[in-house]
């Protein structure tokens, strides 16, 4: 699965199904942990892993070193958040880190695109006076900005993926685009069973593997 396939899958089938496929299509049954050992996956994906990404390479997993951090709620059910605390083993093959970040960006962009679809539908249904909110110029402008960001990101994820540092920047751009769209949804984007919950989960995925704005890899 490449980044563009992840994007299309996420837009059509959602977060959990796409993340499951992304994990299933890794070359080995691994826990693909980020630089600080964190990882978020559907619960079933944790059951049969034998390897782990640690210190940039693929190592043998020590099950006792897997710490449960909690759950990430999504409309399809919770994801499991874990941290691997095992000591790095002897240097193994390099973990396909950039590829994973690219697919993750594709997944998150697909969710963002689905959010845009939902936002356009929502604003088309709501009215202020006799006019749909969708036809208010401020709304049009905000939607134009969001779709521009999404297309800019999509072009960079198509074909050869960019280097890891550029992918980190793209993840930040996806987060900011999602926030632009959430502002158009008002309180309906803030409810635990609404579109804002997917955005929250998407941001948590980025946090697990990349970290916040100021973090330096």
């Amino acid at each position, binding site marked *: 699965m490449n980044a563009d396939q992840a994007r299309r899958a996420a837009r059509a089938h959602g977060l959990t199904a796409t993340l499951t496929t992304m994990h299933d299509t890794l070359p080995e049954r691994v826990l693909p942990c980020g630089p600080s050992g964190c990882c978020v996956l559907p619960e079933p994906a944790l059951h049969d892993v034998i390897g782990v990404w640690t210190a940039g390479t693929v190592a043998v997993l020590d099950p006792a070193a897997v710490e449960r951090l909690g759950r990430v709620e999504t409309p399809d059910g919770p994801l499991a958040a874990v941290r691997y605390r095992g000591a790095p083993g002897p240097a193994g093959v390099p973990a396909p880190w950039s590829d994973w970040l690219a697919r993750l960006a594709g997944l998150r962009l697909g969710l963002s695109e689905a959010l845009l679809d939902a936002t356009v539908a929502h604003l088309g249904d709501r009215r202020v006076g006799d006019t749909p909110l969708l036809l208010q110029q401020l709304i049009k402008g905000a939607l*134009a900005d969001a*779709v*521009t960001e999404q*297309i800019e990101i999509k*072009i960079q994820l198509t*074909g050869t993926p*960019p280097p890891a540092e550029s992918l980190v920047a793209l993840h930040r751009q996806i987060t900011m685009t999602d926030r632009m769209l959430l502002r158009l949804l008002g309180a309906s984007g803030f409810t635990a069973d609404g579109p804002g919950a997917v955005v929250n989960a998407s941001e948590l995925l980025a946090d697990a593997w990349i970290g916040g704005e100021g973090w330096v890899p």
Partner: protein
Amino acid sequence: MIELDDRLGTARVHARDWARDLRGTALELDRDPDTVYRCLDNPAVRHLSRMLIPERWLPDRTLIGGYRFDGMTAMERVVFAEEIAAGDAGMLLASPGASLSGVLIDLLADQEQKEWFYGRLLAAPTWTFFALTEPDHGSDAGAMGTALDPDGEGGLLLRGAKRYIGNGARAQVGVVFARDRPGPLGATAVLVDTGAPGFKAEPIPTIGLRGAQLSAITLDGVPVPAARVLGRHLSPTRRGVWSGVQMFNRLRPGVAAIALGIARSAHDYVAEQRSSLSKAERLRWERTGRRIDGVRQLIWQAAAIVDAQPANGHLASAAKARAARLAEEVTLEALEYFGPGARLTQPMLDKLIRDARGVEFMEGTGNIQRLNTFQGLVQGKIGRD
């Protein structure tokens, strides 16, 4: 990611080389727009003066890196525009050549009109202008007040005023949009010789992009031969608003590339003038570089779409709005690397900041572009597959 083929990659390398010379004259042109007359031998200026002249009229064009470039595609124009604007956007806009009018000539002119227009350009360095915007109506073609009326002897007369017209005061020929009848199909473009009686153009002092020499044009009964009406061989539908839409779609990625070039120039300036950056500054500078790279990809995609489907300018609008904003952001951010007083002590950076403001309203303001982007979104024409 989009990557340039060898031909366009070669263009980029050559144009980047030309741009170095432009930096040397950028501040001089900013102070004195007539500087362009002393720069006609600059390879970038020479190239711009020959752009948008089709091969048929210029078969022995100088090759660049073994390739022929005539500027007839948006993709080619954006590659050159970014690099030349990174040298000096003012000079790009000050240069002689077909410029904006060239795209309309390609769309609308008949054989005789092309002979006349390209003949003028090839005979000597010739500046052109494109006049749509009006003092009271902006670029709203539907409200256009400039009139094109019969003179009673088989010819026509132009009456009205145009404003913010690049190169208006130094041009020898140009295109004027005017109304020849009421209604939405009443807009017509005509070729005008600036030496004709009743034509007057005066520069309008501006904050930046002074090389462009924006001008106010007065048309006081300017005689126009009937043979200079563009698209006279086409239906009124195709020579009016349709042609304007097609033309602006084709040009918009190039304007976006000018903005990108200004942003990149400011970004490069930081690296050149600040030999050692702190770790935090280095990270910030690299992050800005990635934003520039992302917008470049967007512009290339927009140019490719316009070349393939000239009626689809929605992504071109998105790219133009995004790039204009980027130019303002990056030039202002560059100040942060130099501390208080940077606009006074770094004149080149000060110029870039002023120039960046000028791109916002070229070919439509950011808000107009966003409305056009929105139309592309709701009509499914902006490439979200």
